């Protein structure tokens, strides 16, 4: 099962929903990995969306591509990574009109970054639906060196840029689409608790 119930947390932490069909002139669906399952579920509930849908999918190590394509969206794109897809996503927003509905699903990193792009294009974040599926790994920003480490699944972890030992916080930046990582052994260098998997 690709769903996970996040425990209640601080207000800063994003919360996710189950995607629902909304009226719109066009529908943009962006997903990665198991996020495909949320789009497939949405298309089962509201098949009429697909004729006006543009699906942008990043499979990572999964093989949902064929099933997604079989939903017959008006446009289907599959890319090897978010970085590879982001220029297309920016272009879609710059060409889009009001009445576009946005559906994001998959990992927090993917949803956060796509949402940030929509915000930069002038769209209100509250109007964007997000459904978490799959990996619980997070996109983390080191608050010290500002470097981003992708797919962090253990806490604490080592910053991939400056090497500090970082505590995984629920404190989130919507603009950066990243959780904040704070040095855990600043006062007593080397005293680092054993790292364990998030939510384990």
């Amino acid at each position, binding site marked *: 099962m690709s769903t996970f119930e996040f425990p209640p947390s601080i207000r800063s932490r994003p919360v996710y929903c189950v995607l629902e069909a*909304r*009226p*719109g*002139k066009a529908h943009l669906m962006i997903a990665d990995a198991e996020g495909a399952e949320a789009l497939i579920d949405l298309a089962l509930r509201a098949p009429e969306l697909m004729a006006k849908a543009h699906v942008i999918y990043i499979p990572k190590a999964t093989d949902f591509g064929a099933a997604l394509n079989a939903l017959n969206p008006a446009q289907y794109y599959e890319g090897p990574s978010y970085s590879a897809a982001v220029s297309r996503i920016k272009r879609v*927003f*710059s*060409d*889009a*009109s*009001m*009445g*576009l*509905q946005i559906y994001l699903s998959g990992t927090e990193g993917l949803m956060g970054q796509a949402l940030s792009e929509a915000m930069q*294009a*002038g*769209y*209100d974040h*509250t*109007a964007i639906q997000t459904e978490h599926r799959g990996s619980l790994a997070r996109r983390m920003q080191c608050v010290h060196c500002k470097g981003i480490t992708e797919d962090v699944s253990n806490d604490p972890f080592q910053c991939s840029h400056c090497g500090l030992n970082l505590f995984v916080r629920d404190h989130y930046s919507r603009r950066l689409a990243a959780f904040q990582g704070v040095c855990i052994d600043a006062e007593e260098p080397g005293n680092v608790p054993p790292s364990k998997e998030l939510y384990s």
Partner: protein
Amino acid sequence: MTGTAPNSTAPKTVGAAKLAVRVSAITTLNALVTRFEFQRIDGADFPTFSGGAHTVVEMMDGEKKRLNPYSLMSDPAELSTYAISVRRDDQGRGGSLFMHQKIKVGDEMALSYPVNLFVLDLRARKHLFVAGGIGITPFLAQIKQLEAIGGNWELHYSCRSPDLGSYVDELTEYYPHATSVYYDDKKQLIDLDNLLDGQPFGTHLYVCGPKGMIDWVRKTATATGWPQAHVHHEEFFAPQPGRPFAVRLKKSELTVEVGAQESLLEAIERLGVDAPYLCRGGACGQCETDVLDSDGTFLHRDHWLEDDEKESGEKIMPCVSRFEGKILVLNR
């Protein structure tokens, strides 16, 4: 029991400080609308405001104090003068008639500090304005604000007839490419479906006008996929008259009879109890008051409280809502 309440523990009104002003100009625009300009008696500049803000005008009509909100329509960058445009409402409670018939250049009045419940969202890529009749006034200030910063805007303005088209000449002269005017008497209607279709991503929509127009625009926008966060409306409800009713104010230890032509908020103020308010039109939420006890029917007329709050009988917005029944006790 009536009288003042010097020991009232009710909170002090937000924005209670008033601006003492003198009427500096009165301009008749057409058969229904007159513009009033004010300058401060102390000669200082007015407080800054942003387009969409309103001021509550205090009118001393004999013994009666009237407090009516009006949108500031002057240039937010020009603070020596505040200007409002008042549409005469012959069926109203008398505030606009008082302004039209009694106020003369040189009269001294009091204005509240400006409050904005209809702000521009400056993250917008484009601002799309839909105005009906006197609903043009907040947009006049917003347009001046946007022009100063090179903002992208477009106005669709519906009026009854050319004779009653307040500011149409000014708008079409200065902004011919951004302004579209529609006259009811020529059967010209805003083609809303077409207008909302194809607006650039990141556009914000603003509507101010009669209730029917606001409902139509909001409903059409929602049906075509515009999110609520991108659709803004300004709608003040004037208090409606009704049957007189009695209210007990628990904290102030006073009882007041609310007259047929008076709002609950006005009755509370008449006793000298300092009740909070900002818009006096059921929109802002500032006057929300806890009901401690009641036996009767609430006539909720605001669009602030949620439906379940209205049904709970635990809250009332005294600026526009009324009550019919035996007992009403407020925590005021």
